[in-house]
């Protein structure tokens, strides 16, 4: 962990009466994996949306590598090296998985050559390489609208990685992934990101995933950061256990004594 890569200071944004961001201050360090946890409606996605330019904070500043990016358009922010994946995967549904990836690779290099094919070997190879690493090679030729939720999610993340970002923001990367595969998927993901030296911020509901992969955890609550620190410390905090983990774990995994 070295220098500050992304710095948010005093971000505020309200929708009607709901304060989705109510003074967010956060520094993301280069190379770290930072998990964001918190109940639904706490403003986790809003933070990602503000950082990637989809929403503009009403006040506050976001700087990336020392440069102010508040209010810039999503496509300009991408060019600076910040990519994101989505809670609801955003794939080009009428294209195959490989074409989705190739299009992401092509858009990184600029798409304005109208007569050279998307199927050129360079794009295909890189797309295949990524699919290989994400364990998606078998479905390269499948149309995106025919994928199951887990594959869709991974392809969505792979597209973001194809942009070769320095910072990747992932909105619930494991939701929709079958519980039995979850750990393996995150394992793969973490390896790919570490290899590519990508700093990652991810919203996560599964505390096991957080505990195992996050360097730091930020707890979101009503548009504020309620706690921030290493997972062992934060997750052990009784207040966090009561307010966040209690809510999250309660219906899905009841505290069974033999677990």
């Amino acid at each position, binding site marked *: 962990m070295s220098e500050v890569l992304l710095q948010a200071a005093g971000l505020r944004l309200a929708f009607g009466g709901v304060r989705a961001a109510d003074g967010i201050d956060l520094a993301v360090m280069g190379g770290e994996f930072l998990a964001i946890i918190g109940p639904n409606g706490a403003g986790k*996605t809003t933070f990602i*949306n503000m950082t990637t330019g*989809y929403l503009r904070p009403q006040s506050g500043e976001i700087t990336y590598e020392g440069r102010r990016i508040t209010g810039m358009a999503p496509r300009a922010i991408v060019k600076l090296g910040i990519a994101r994946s*989505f*809670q*609801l995967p*955003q794939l080009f549904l009428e294209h195959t998985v490989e074409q989705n990836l190739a299009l992401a690779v092509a858009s990184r290099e600029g798409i304005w050559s109208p007569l050279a094919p998307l199927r050129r070997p360079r794009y295909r190879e890189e797309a295949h390489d990524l699919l290989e690493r994400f364990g998606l090679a078998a479905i390269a030729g499948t149309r995106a609208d025919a994928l199951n939720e887990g594959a869709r999610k991974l392809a969505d993340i792979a597209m973001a990685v194809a942009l070769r970002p320095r910072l990747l923001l992932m909105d619930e990367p494991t939701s929709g992934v079958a519980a039995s595969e979850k750990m393996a998927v995150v394992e793969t993901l973490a390896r790919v990101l570490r290899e590519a030296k990508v700093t990652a911020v991810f919203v996560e509901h599964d505390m096991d995933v957080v505990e195992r992969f996050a360097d730091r955890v930020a707890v979101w609550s009503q548009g504020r950061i309620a706690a921030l620190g290493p997972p062992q410390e934060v997750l052990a905090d009784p207040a966090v256990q009561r307010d966040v983990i209690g809510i999250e774990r309660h219906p899905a995994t009841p505290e069974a004594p033999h677990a």
Partner: protein
Amino acid sequence: MAEWFQDNGLLLGLALLDGLSSAGLIFLVAVGLNLVFGVLRIVNVAHGSLYAIGAYSAASIGIFLASLGLPGWASIPALVVSAALVGAVLGPLIERFLLRRIYAQEEVVQLLVTFALFMVLEDVQKLVWGVQPIHHDTAMTLLGTIDIPFAGDVIPFTNYQLFVLPGFAVVTLVGLAWFLRRTLTGRVIVAVTTDREAATAMGIDASRIYLLTFSFGAALAALGGALSSPTAALVPGIGAQTIVLSFAVVATAGLGQIEGAALTSLMMGLGRSIAVYFEPELEVVVPYIIMVLVLLVRPQGLFGVTETRRV
């Protein structure tokens, strides 16, 4: 300015009155189109044909009643009856046998189906009523004219255009607003408009609502046509003119907006009739200029709501 007014005041008064009455007609047709789009999510190009058929039917029924020797006033209810007939006969036919098959299709395809229907109905209309102008204005002449004092002068204007046309529009506007907000069926329609999936998930019988809405929309188009029939001779092509104007109103007002459609109709009706009296070359262009200007400032229409997509 004062001098200009002295010269042109009378014209301006006439333009305003004309604009008001044509706004009434435009509203009736456009609100039908808007309602159908809101619920079925289909832009019905054949809406203009329904207008034309409503107009021709009203004229035919009026002429038929007169030939029976019935008094002239009978042609007034005949206007409404013919509109209801068109709505009740053609509406369900089109919805059941055509539109129902394409709800799941792409928007382009839906648009093309109604375009094809438009082509078919245009020729049907020519085959049934011919291409010679048909004129039956008993309803208008019967109600006489009124002298309206304006700028120290009087403008004679027909009672029919001054009261009946805007009157129907106002009644429709108020009635529709009341129906959609206060009755159960109306609220169901609004629910389907705002979130079709949720509405169907809640067990709302969407297919019945579609049938009802489409037939009602068709009746509104036909009513617009029927009410217009006493004011002008009917010729082929009125359907095509009407539909493009209604499109412009719907896009300007914002999709699914009823009060918006009323205001837009008023703007376009007045704009157009002012053009007729002062710059006739611009008549046809005025609605589109209004539309472009509005959409430049408000891309989702005057009253349209921006949909923020959740990502």
